[in-house]
């Protein structure tokens, strides 16, 4: 999966969970500050990520603020598992 593909999938999940259109989400949108994402929203996003790419260690996702942050974590994960 290319980085762009990962980003697109993530933007879709963010839009669904946060109730906004994908146009409102670019890779560097701060999900907490700009889109009011709360802890439950992030729990939903992480669940979607895990459903898509498998289970992640909790701490790897804790500092995520943007789609780009999340995509980087996923890219590292895929590289580690050889995906």
């Amino acid at each position: 999966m290319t980085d762009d593909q990962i980003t697109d999938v993530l933007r879709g999940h963010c839009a669904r969970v946060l109730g906004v259109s994908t146009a409102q989400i670019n890779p560097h949108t701060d999900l907490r500050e700009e889109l009011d994402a709360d802890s439950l929203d992030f729990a939903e996003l992480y669940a979607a990520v895990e459903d898509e790419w498998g289970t992640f260690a909790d701490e790897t996702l804790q500092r995520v603020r943007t789609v780009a942050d999340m995509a980087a974590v996923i890219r590292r994960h895929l590289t580690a598992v050889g995906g």
Partner: protein
Amino acid sequence: MRPRVAVTGLGLRTPAGAGPKELWNALLAGRSTARTITSFDVSTLAVRFACQVPDLDVSAYLTDRQARRLDRASLLAVCAAGDALADAGHPRVPPERRAVVAGSSFCGTETYESALLDTPGAGALRLSPIFIPKIMPNAGAAAIGMRYEIRGPSMSVVTACASGAHAIGEGVRLIRDGSADLVVAGAGDANVTPGMLHGFSRCRALSGRNDDPEAACRPFEADRDGFVLAEGAAFVVLERLDEAVRRGARVHAEVSGYGRTSDAHDLTAPAPGGEGARRCMDAALADAGLAPEDIVHVNAHGTGTELNDLAEAQAIGRVFGPAAVPVSATKGVTGHALGASGAIEAVACVLAIAECTAPPTANLERLDPRCDIDASPVPRPIARGPVMSNSFGFGGHNATLVFSPAP
């Protein structure tokens, strides 16, 4: 002297309509709202009909994102509570002096069933993180509190089919003891689901009249064969009567009495002779400082089950004497919205006082001769006076409320 408690706002979501006027007109018409279910596949179920709230639109109350986090029971509750506050004119009470008491019988039933029913085993579960906050029994109270900025007491009451009446009664106590200046009290329940229909059917509690749903709920009727499952919500706004009058609020009625007892007898059957129900009505009368002859109308729990109606009729007879007071059973029209029913019927009582009318009991063609009560299939004029509402829940939880005309 303890403060008197006024009802200053009414809000509803019922199968018979989303406003007091719609509910009242449906009750007067005496026409059941039970229909064959089309919102999900009922082909394998023994009972295939219910009373459902049509076209629930929450967009005026919640954003899509807020709504997605709530089960249907909580959505109904938030809408009804919002309408009650609007009806009360959004009283200017500091958030810290506002309270909410929200009842339900179950919570999150739709959420539960849609997540779990088709799942082959725990190992395959992929639950959403919003599953837990949607099914918690306090979700309705929490949602109402967040939406309407209620920062005082916030509680949930779960006493099966008495939940709504208990919620209003406990709300009355918060006003009386000075814990709050405004209480949003009531209940919301949404259990028209395959699992609930199946479960209640297996309890032998539901009517099986699949071919004639509108005739299925027959409270106190000789040919009754069980209750009709419904959903809905009703909330009232409670304030100190003196403060409500001072601010020029429209006072719908006074909550003058509240009784609560329990049977300590059986998980589903009422105590023999309706003993717990009788004590509950006596307690509510004592709380109101009224005698049985002061009550002009009783809104019965009247589910249309063999056991409830017989026990309740006996209890009413013991309190008031044989056929001594006009009795109505709202569930003939609305069905049985379980935890919400007592709150819906509290609103029906307030409307009966305003209209000086005891609404008919739908489908009452031939009164069960063992039920020696004064029930009628047509509306009847009543004097302007106190009205009583009964609610009894599985587990033997009993609640009785007395509403009096606004002074």
